[in-house]
């Protein structure tokens, strides 16, 4: 695959995944253009997390194509290689390194030589320090920079994880349920943060919270039973009869 086959940054075509007969993804096709922010919604079991797993190399699809940047076949790469290509992921459950300080969490995420030899001889540069300070400002964790990440509140952990995504400087950010368990104020702030990030990056957000999705104000894809049910603005999607049916069970 040397020639670009698509202009889209992320391109999924007819992807299917099944676990012991259960079809988690069923002929899912989806494209995300560079610079776009996309919200993915869908009821439980719609295949949102499995889709993330397929993109990041955690799960191999049974069939279908997944291309990144038009030329990289993600189905043949593993998690590390995909991360190196520039795809960052925030997990559904916030996972930060609990025993490291907030600073160190970011330090580990910073774009850098990731071989064991390089990390052994590593010394921090002034540029790196400045970058960490910058990110701490964006995610508003400056005052707790020396605290152990395990001692942060749930919301702070969510933000730290987003900060780690930023530090990775990826081309594509996959953000899984960034506002689960957050207060309204925090949710609002998170939306602001993501919009800010989306100015320079391509972002895919998976979320249940409709208020939050509305606040993002971006194109929405609704998944159901492993395939795309509807796509469009939030108003279009929420007016779609089948979406209503799926959500309300009518």
């Amino acid at each position, binding site marked *: 695959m040397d020639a670009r086959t698509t202009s889209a940054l992320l391109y999924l075509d007819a992807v299917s995944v099944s676990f012991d007969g259960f079809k988690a993804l069923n002929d899912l096709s989806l494209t995300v253009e560079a610079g776009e922010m996309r919200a993915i919604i869908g009821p439980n079991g719609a295949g949102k997390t499995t889709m993330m797993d397929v993109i*990041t190399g955690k799960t191999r699809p049974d069939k279908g194509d997944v291309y990144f940047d038009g030329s990289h076949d993600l189905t043949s790469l593993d998690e*590390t290689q995909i991360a190196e290509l520039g795809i960052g992921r925030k997990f559904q459950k916030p996972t*930060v390194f609990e025993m490291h300080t907030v600073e160190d969490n970011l330090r*580990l995420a910073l774009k850098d030589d990731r071989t064991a030899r390089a990390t*052994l001889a590593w010394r921090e540069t002034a540029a790196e320090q400045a970058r960490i300070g910058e990110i701490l400002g964006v995610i508003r964790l400056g005052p707790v920079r020396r605290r152990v990440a395990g001692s942060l509140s749930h919301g702070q952990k969510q933000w730290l994880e987003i900060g780690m995504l930023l530090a990775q400087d990826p081309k594509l950010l996959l953000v899984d349920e960034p506002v689960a368990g957050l207060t309204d104020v925090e949710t609002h702030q998170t939306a602001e943060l993501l919009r800010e990030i989306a100015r320079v990056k391509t972002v895919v957000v998976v979320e249940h919270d409709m208020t939050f999705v509305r606040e993002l104000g971006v194109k929405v894809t609704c998944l159901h039973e492993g395939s795309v049910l509807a796509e469009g603005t939030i108003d279009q999607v929420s007016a779609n009869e089948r979406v209503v049916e799926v959500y309300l069970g009518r």
Partner: protein
Amino acid sequence: MTSSPLIRALDRSAVTFILVLVAIGVIVPLLNLALPPSSPWHVPTYLVALWGKYVCYALLALSIDLIWGYCGILSLGHGAFFALGGYAMGMYLMRQIGTRGVYADPIRPDFMVFLNWPELPVYWYGFQHFAYAALMVLLVPGLLAFVFGWFAFRSRVTGVYLSIITQALTYALMLGFFRNNFGFGGNNGLTDFKDILGFNVQAQPTRAALFAISVAALILGFLICRTIVASKLGMVLISIRDAESRTRFLGYRVENYKLFVFTLSACMAGVAGALYVPQVGIINPSEFAPGNSIEAVIWVAVGGRGTLIGAVLGAAVVNYGKTTFTSGLLAPYWLFVLGSLFVLVTLLLPRGIVGTVRHYRGAWRERRNAAHGRGAQAAPKPAE
């Protein structure tokens, strides 16, 4: 945080610890050699040998702590690397016996003559040279660990699965080494050593020197571990321990990191075994017994995993306890004590001795700082 990794490694407790080790390494041999046996300060040679054994165990504990405490790899087969290093040294010592053996064969060790082996097997070649044997001490455990780890880590065998197959590994090796036709002396192993580098292994000065060398090896091992742990590499290792898949999604090649520390750790265990053999005077297949490897893990747990000093301390404390118990009337109860140690430490003292002390000291500092209104800025990381 901008200094070289080695300088960063030498924080205050590390420097203190190294100084203590240096003192032990110098003073104990001195008290043994310079003072007459009548002096109350004289350290008898049998104690030097015994303590030398503890020092080797401490190095083994250190190697286990590096992978378990910092990278979350619980190896229940580290005794295998220890024993392999020991066997490499034992083979050198066997070749040194020469014509002084019972059968006075200049080339073949006694057990080969006894088993009517016409000539030395190829894998015994070269062991008459110390340098070659020393190389093998590092290479054999290192290579085994590398090959094993290469398979295991690439296919993401983790947690208890890894523990179980490491245990199976050492078990398989034990079965093999028990066999006569493996060519390592079978049941009896290698023993009756005469001299090392021309010095009599039984002689008092040799024993004292071996002790000092073991302490030096321990210091070197500690420095290596400390440097790794204090570097960004150490940070990555802890990340792997706490959230392996997260580390992978950050773009770190987890298997390479694991393979690196696992191989390094195996080499350290090999050196520990090599220093152990001339001091105890024997190496036999029971060193491969799975129980030995698990016992070494409990030293680390007692001292505090994820604290290098704790590993060394734990090895010394538990083995001192073992010696005290098993040499007296209490011998039948030692296994009760050891068993309870396993249970109680995991239940009540999961941080180990050093970890618990650090935890409370850290908490105390935080409270004091809070009382002075300075904020909880400098809370030390729980893991060094």
